């Protein structure tokens, strides 16, 4: 009796309360930005090439004067990750030459349809300017 009633609770009130995950936790991808707000991603497709689950789809486009998304010539027009297929190996993060795609500790993947599990570039991009909720 004593063990059941008076032991410290092991559950937390998710989602109001979130447990701190280990520092190297690998969950949902985030596309990072430079300090000035430009996207880090250059649309090189190396993440898609490294992905063993083939869950990343990148279509690149050229930056133009007046429509600049990233610092160089090239940016990702479409960047999609199918999080249902992803095995969270982190190879994409390893492959990325500009440290754009990063696996974070966000893990709210639940959705009502399979389509919603395909994360588009807008969903993956870090908000700018950074809000309080954004991942550290």
């Amino acid at each position, binding site marked *: 009796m004593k063990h059941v009633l008076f032991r410290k609770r092991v559950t937390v009130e998710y989602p109001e309360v979130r447990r701190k995950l280990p520092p190297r936790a690998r969950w949902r991808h985030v596309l990072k930005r430079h300090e000035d707000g430009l996207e880090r991603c*250059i*649309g*090189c*497709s*190396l993440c*898609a*090439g490294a992905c063993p689950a083939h869950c990343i789809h990148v279509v*690149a*486009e*050229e930056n133009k004067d007046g429509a600049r998304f990233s610092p*160089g*010539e*090239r940016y990702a027009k479409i960047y999609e990750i199918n999080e249902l297929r992803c095995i969270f190996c982190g190879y994409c993060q390893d492959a990325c*030459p*500009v440290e754009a795609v990063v696996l974070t500790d966000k893990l709210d993947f639940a959705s009502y349809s399979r389509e919603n599990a395909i994360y588009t570039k807008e969903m993956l991009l870090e908000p700018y300017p950074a809000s309080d909720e954004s991942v550290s």
Partner: protein
Amino acid sequence: MADNVTLTIDGQTVTVAAGTTILEAAASIGIEIPVFCNHPKLEPIGACRQCLVEVEGQPKPIASCCTPAAEGMIVHTKTPSVRQMWEANIEFLLINHPLDCPICDRGGECPLQNNTFAYGPRDSRFDYTKRRYKKPVRLSDRILLDRERCIQCFRCVRFQKEIADEPDIQMFSRGYYDYIDTAPGKEFESQFSGNTIELCPVGALTSAVFRFKARPWEIQSTESVCVNCGVGCNIRIDARNYREVVRFLSRENPEVDDGWLCDKGRFDSLFINDKNRLQAPLIRKDGRLVETSWDEALETAVKIMKDAGGRSAGLISPKLTNEAAYLFSKLMREFGAVGCDWNLERASADAAVKTAEAFSEGLFDGAIKDITSSTLLIVYGSDISSELPVMDLWIKKAVRRNGAELVLIGCESSKLAKYAKTVMPENIESVVKAIESSKSSERVLIMVSQRLVELSPYGVEILDSLKEIARSRQPKVMMLACASNSIGMLETGAVWGKPGSEIKKSILDGNIKALWVAGESDKYAESLARVDALIVQDMFLTKTAEVANIVLPGSSFAETSGTIINTERRVQCINPAIRKLRGTLTDVEIFARAAVKTGLNTISQTSEDVFKELTQTANSFAEITLDKIGARGVRLEAKR
């Protein structure tokens, strides 16, 4: 000088023909020497200094790409000092190379990348700021230049000078400041400019069309044949996700294209990906075109044609495959059409019959490769530079390297005119005169335009004269095809009944009630609009399609399999590189389904089956199988 020399490379003895470079000798026994500037089809220049090797008895390392092998030479490529030179040279090249491989179109298939991984240093010791240029620099609508990436190998400059003889680009300045540019105010206008992209060993020259479209490892490649002209250059179609064609590359066939491809073939076929392509059959109801099912469209089409019977006709594009042409012709016969043709300008039916005879008699026995082995080239009635661009390179090679004599008959405005010894007036007597007045008439190749022989009113006369010349002077004769499969149209029997000009006349007189136009429907838009009931088969809603009763969405050559016949009567396979666009059918499928609706139930349904049927019915195809055609194609043979 001895014919052969024997030398030792890394302890292996090899005997090669005199004049072979050390690099080639090493390659022949499987010893790899890294090199950037050297290319088998270009003159060696020794610009990149990557191929240095040690030769015993020589005080300094020597560039193996421009040193001929000599008797008794002892070459070392594996000594530490050679390896150190290779590594140091790559380190030097990389000092000024931006290393933006992730965004470079060449990244993944780049000789500089490969050689760096194989022979280069592990790390860079270069701590300073790299040189920066504005990028990309536009050389033309098709070619963009990234000066930072250039390693000054001169391949592009040499190609334009040696092969194309259109030196539009040059290396300017010296040493560290070297850069490629066009003449001030000029563009890179050469019609072979796209080859420099493929030659570039880095990503300096890039295609404006392919730019950022796909990375090399995401590409599916298919071996096919270009359908833009009668040469039939072998190409590699690169697609992404089996849905989008991203680029066309040359695929060397030493007997057809010599490894080159013209800009038309390389850049102008990407309409395949166009978003405006038709994706459902259209039928005219209450004066408007509305989408319908294939069944309804084909049933109505067949009914229209059958009802018109003797007042119907067929017009086929000379770009369609042999298989499609064969089925189309069969279908038209079933409808009882007055004729079937690929060209509405054809003056008489006799010339077509005579040409087919000449084919089977073996009059047209000349091959593209004969251009370089002939001493006298006679081009009669065709501007090769614009109509068959890659043959223009063959002729330049023959004239500039082998000293062959070129005579142009007609076509004085051709770009080839400056290589011609004489330009003669356009008539058949000129051919005899050209042969008689030439000093080098041992091996003669007469290239005569298909338009003159088959379509013009003088076709029969020209053919008779050609036969006479062939009998008395034994030249080789080649027909210069009007389109990628215009010769196949004759071989498959798709030209019969009323000739094109009479069909056109009947249309204008209102005597043709129904016409089936298969492909290239925008060609005779004005005349075609006069037909009562028009069935148009095309990829786009062309002007002709807009006034049609039924529009059938066809597919492109990148979605089709089949065979085509080029100007030297070589049968080659085209293969599907991408999935068919949803809602479309290939031409063979359309004709086969229509045939079933007509009541021809025994008709072959797939391209392969149709080809088999062709080999059984058409004499010239008798010996040919798809296996024999393979990747290189096989020429239709006829005994002379």
